[in-house]
């Protein structure tokens, strides 16, 4: 068995020290046996010492091992503590990045530790809070000691709020180098609340204690009261003896006693402070409210020795409280049941409204909980309302009343008359707003409607050309709408315009009559005046105005008191009237001086609605001149009467025009007068018609004669040309025979014996002279035949009977173009035909007409360009003009008239074949169709031929 290490070592050390001290006295002079022994002993001791040290070292290692195990255990334990404790624990590095946190902290950020590590507060919190935390961290790190701060935080996971007491401790590594800051946050919300409450109570207590009116009592551990101060005794009027023990309970209002005792005993057993209110009998006999606050009483050693109580007379306060409560009750009643909408808006914008208010805006109480007044206010009104509230809050005004719009739950706008007052306490601290609203939507709507109609009226007045004025003669007050001035280009005046200025603005020629008219009404008995006059416009021109002034009020003496009037610009009307007068003047002059008979009529219908006659309503001088019927014998008379016929002349045609409104023109021989008339009928309005008739009897006769003469001429031409042809055939035929006979002579001569000289002479006659003669004859015959053929063609065209029909011009032209296709393609020409309207006529002749024009266009093309022919048409009233335009060589303006003449050729010597009849035929056919042809042309540019034909049958 080894001796205890320590004691052995100690003994040895003591021995060694002894030895050492000996040696100190005995210096190095001589070394005895004893000394040697001592030395040896010393060495032995040293060995032992080393052994011992070795043993100690082993023990130390063992101990350290144990410590390490414990440390590991502790670490695990610590970690589980960290995990489970309700505190938030985290570790941040110097830069603010998280290095670790516990599970509670995870809930604060609403993220897992693994995610939080490496992030900063800025990643999870708003900037303000993150800044705050970062500053706190810095403060702790700079201070080098733990710092404490408190703040409200909100958990990200469930949103609950807690008041946190945070201890931030700077952390250092082994080398004392700052590595970060450790945070431990403790939820001290409850403590905080308790502290707040306690603080409040303390304040209250001190208030009361300082009043010096405290009724004080003490009790012992037996709960019995053992002391009452004088103030108490004075209050109850009892003696200390009477009160001691439970005597004081006698003075407590019986109803309050049980509660009172109960509170006391409950608190006593827990040794807690208590507070209670009860009624205590005053020495005057009345019960007064007492606030009794008991606290456990301890002696110097901290031993519980009972309770000490402070009581205060709070009767007055209680009374006030009760009164207030009653008043509040009353107020609540009034508030809730008022038919006027009422609301209380707290300064933090909480809205409490009564039933009437809810009814107005349509929201339930629950729905309103989450709404502020802004939420239910019409957007446009919010700013205005907020400004007013600001003024009230600042004390600038006490209350406000205004009209505003709420938004009803159903989305409609509700107009209310709103009064709001800010309630303040005695210290003038604002409490809340009391607001009353009355639904004025209907009134407002009516008001708007009125406003609208007023605006509309003024808009009408402003935009209409009518000016209105109102003149109070008694006060000489004058009012006129803006138009009064603006209609004449003047700036509107207000007040009392100088009427003499206005009078001067009347045209000098009109001024007198205006003055007279106005004076009549003002001075005498007239009720109204009206005049048209020219007024001077600001631009210097005169404009016609029409003015009406009406007396609306008279004085008892009959003098005009007030007048109303209107002024209208009638310049346009006057202008039109003037023009109308001019035009009527012209028209009637024309009517009277026309050589054509003009008569106006009105149809007369029978009971079945059939036109049976017509009435002559007007006629001109020419009518009388031509018909011999006097004007007075015609106007107002029926057609049958005037013309002495059984049926009104031309009734059918006239009625058609008067009913359909389509004008008509026809010529007719009117047997009763033995006259030929060309009659135009037009219908100025329904069932009325005007006839413009021209006596064409003479004209007709001449035309008839011309027709006959023309016919004769054509016949003559025909016969002549035919008869001319007959001898021509002979000349040609016999010339041919002569040629043959000459050949025969030549043949005979060859076989005949004649002297060479005679033969030579005869040969000369037969081979040179006779053929030359014959050549002249033949060429003349051909020329003559061409002429005769031309004449024949022309005369034949005139003689051919026409078969008139509606002609489909598109079809006809297509046919004409088709027959010229060969020549067109040969000259690589291009014919462009537009859609053509139909006309009336003989399609064979029209075919001839257009064929001639087309072949001319091809014949007289410009060889240097591609031939372009365009055929189009335009409507011209009841005629159609067909247009054939080419880009050919054109016609010199000198010849443009002559081309229509027979046998006229602009290029007689040219190689262009032609008989000189084509255009004459074109002209003749057009004229036979009551049409026209003409040409527009420019040499070198091309020609455009116009063919005017009738749209309808003229027969």
């Amino acid at each position, binding site marked *: 068995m080894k001796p205890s290490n320590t004691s052995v070592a100690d003994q040895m050390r003591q021995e060694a020290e002894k030895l050492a001290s000996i040696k100190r006295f005995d210096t190095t002079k001589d070394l005895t046996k004893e000394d040697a022994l001592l030395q040896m002993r010393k060495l032995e001791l040293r060995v032992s010492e080393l052994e011992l040290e070795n043993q100690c070292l082993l023990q130390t290692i063992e101990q350290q091992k144990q410590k390490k195990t414990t440390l590991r255990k502790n670490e695990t334990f610590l970690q589980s503590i960290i995990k489970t404790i309700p505190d938030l624990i985290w570790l941040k590095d110097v830069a603010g990045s998280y290095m670790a946190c516990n599970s509670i902290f995870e809930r604060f950020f609403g993220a897992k530790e693994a995610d939080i590590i490496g992030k900063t507060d800025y990643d999870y919190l708003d900037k303000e809070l993150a800044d705050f935390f970062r500053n706190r961290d810095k403060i702790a790190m700079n201070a080098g000691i733990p710092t404490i701060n408190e703040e409200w935080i909100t958990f990200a996971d469930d949103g609950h709020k807690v008041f946190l007491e945070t201890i931030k401790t700077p952390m250092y590594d082994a080398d004392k180098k700052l590595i970060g800051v450790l945070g431990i946050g403790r939820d001290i919300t409850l403590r905080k609340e308790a502290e707040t409450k306690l603080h409040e109570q303390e304040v209250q207590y001190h208030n009361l204690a300082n009043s010096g009116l405290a009724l004080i009592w003490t009790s012992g551990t037996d709960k019995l009261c053992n002391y009452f101060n004088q103030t108490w005794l004075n209050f109850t009027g009892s003696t200390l003896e009477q009160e001691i023990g439970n005597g004081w309970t006698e003075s407590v209002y019986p109803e309050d006693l049980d509660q009172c005792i109960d509170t006391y005993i409950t608190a006593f057993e827990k040794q807690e402070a208590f507070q209670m209110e009860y009624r205590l009998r005053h020495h005057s006999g009345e019960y007064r409210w007492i606030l009794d606050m008991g606290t456990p009483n301890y002696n110097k050693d901290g031993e519980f020795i009972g309770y000490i109580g402070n009581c205060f007379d709070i009767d007055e306060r209680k009374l006030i409280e009760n009164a207030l409560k009653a008043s509040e009750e009353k107020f609540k009643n009034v508030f809730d049941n008022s038919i006027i909408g009422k609301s209380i808006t707290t300064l933090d914008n909480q809205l409490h409204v009564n039933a009437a208010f809810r009814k107005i805006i349509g929201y339930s109480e629950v729905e309103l909980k989450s709404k502020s007044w802004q939420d239910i206010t019409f957007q446009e009104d919010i700013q205005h309302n907020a400004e007013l509230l600001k003024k009230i809050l600042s004390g600038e005004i006490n209350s406000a009343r205004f009209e505003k719009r709420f938004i009803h739950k159903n989305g409609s706008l509700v107009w209310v008359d709103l009064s709001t007052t800010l309630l303040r306490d005695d210290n003038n601290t604002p409490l809340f707003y009391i607001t009353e609203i009355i639904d004025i939507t209907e009134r407002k709507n009516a008001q708007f409607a009125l406003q609208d109609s007023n605006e509309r009226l003024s808009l009408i007045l402003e935009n209409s050309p009518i000016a209105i004025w109102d003149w109070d003669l008694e006060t000489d007050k004058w009012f006129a709408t803006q138009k009064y001035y603006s209609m004449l280009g003047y700036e509107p005046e207000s007040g009392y315009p100088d009427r003499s200025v206005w009078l001067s603005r009347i045209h000098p020629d009109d001024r007198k009559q205006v003055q007279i008219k106005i004076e009549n009404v003002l001075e005498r008995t007239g009720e109204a005046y009206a005049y048209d006059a020219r007024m001077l416009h600001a631009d210097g021109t005169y404009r016609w105005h029409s003015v009406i002034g009406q007396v609306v009020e008279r004085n008892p003496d009959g003098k005009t008191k007030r007048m109303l009037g209107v002024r209208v610009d009638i310049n346009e009307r006057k202008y039109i009237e003037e023009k109308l007068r001019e035009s009527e003047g012209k028209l009637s002059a024309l009517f009277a001086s026309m050589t054509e008979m003009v008569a106006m009529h009105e149809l007369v219908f029978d009971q079945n609605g059939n036109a049976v006659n017509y009435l002559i309503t007007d006629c001109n001088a020419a009518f009388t001149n031509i018909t011999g019927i006097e004007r007075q014998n015609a106007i107002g008379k029926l057609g049958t009467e005037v013309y002495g016929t059984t049926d009104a002349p031309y009734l059918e045609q006239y009625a058609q025009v008067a009913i359909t409104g389509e004008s008509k023109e026809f010529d007719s021989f009117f047997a009763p007068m033995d006259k030929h008339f060309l009659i135009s009928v037009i219908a100025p309005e329904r069932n009325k018609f005007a006839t413009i008739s021209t006596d064409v009897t003479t004209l007709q006769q001449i035309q008839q004669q011309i027709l006959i003469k023309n016919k004769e001429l054509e016949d003559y031409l025909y016969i002549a040309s*035919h008869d001319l*042809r*007959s*001898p021509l*055939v*002979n000349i*040609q*035929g*016999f010339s041919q*025979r002569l040629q*043959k006979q000459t050949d025969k002579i030549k043949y005979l001569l060859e076989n005949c014996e004649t002297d060479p000289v005679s033969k030579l002479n005869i040969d000369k006659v037969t081979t040179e002279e006779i053929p030359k003669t014959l050549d002249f004859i033949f060429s003349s015959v051909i020329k003559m035949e061409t002429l005769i*053929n031309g004449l*024949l063609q022309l005369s*034949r065209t005139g003689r*051919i009977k026409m078969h008139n029909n509606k002609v489909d011009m598109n079809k006809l032209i297509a046919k004409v173009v088709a027959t010229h296709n060969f020549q067109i393609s040969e000259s690589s020409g291009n014919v462009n035909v537009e859609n053509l309207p139909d006309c009336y006529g003989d399609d064979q002749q029209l075919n001839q007409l257009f064929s001639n024009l087309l072949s001319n266009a091809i014949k007289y093309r410009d060889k240097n360009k591609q031939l372009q022919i365009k055929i189009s048409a335009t409507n011209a009233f009841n005629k159609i003009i067909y247009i054939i335009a080419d880009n050919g060589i054109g016609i010199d303006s000198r010849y443009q008239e002559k081309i229509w003449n027979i046998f006229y050729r602009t290029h007689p010597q040219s190689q262009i074949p032609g008989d000189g009849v084509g255009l004459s035929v074109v002209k003749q056919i057009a004229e036979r169709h009551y049409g026209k042809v003409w040409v527009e042309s420019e040499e070198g540019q091309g020609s455009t031929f116009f063919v005017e034909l009738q749209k309808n049958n003229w027969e």
Partner: protein
Amino acid sequence: MENIKELVILIAEDDDGHAELIRAGLVESGVCNKIMRFSNGEDTWNFLSASKNQKPKDFKYYLLLLDIHMPQMDGVEVLRLIKSDPKLKEMPVIILTTTDDPREIEECYQIGCNIYITKPVDFIKFSETLNHLGLFLQIVKV
């Protein structure tokens, strides 16, 4: 063949020159049928209306070359009479005239002329046309 031999060519032509030219033309183109000439419509008609009653043994076929414009009775009138006569209407009639008026031509065809030819006559073409009609003229090659 006998019928062909008997075909007599009648020329109704008021103009002597024309008549002479027709005759010469026919002769020169080798026609050797008998040719009779009338200088107006009336003579022509008189001859024809008389000949329709001829005895069968004297019966002759006629080809009438008819001018239109003739004094007294014109060609159109003669043509109409022929074509409305049951005995004569089979007789071939060729209108030979100076008129090329299409309406006149049409009228003649409507009445019933076989061919309408305008003067001057190309006799070579003329005989070809006749052959087409089936009228075989007695042609002597010269």
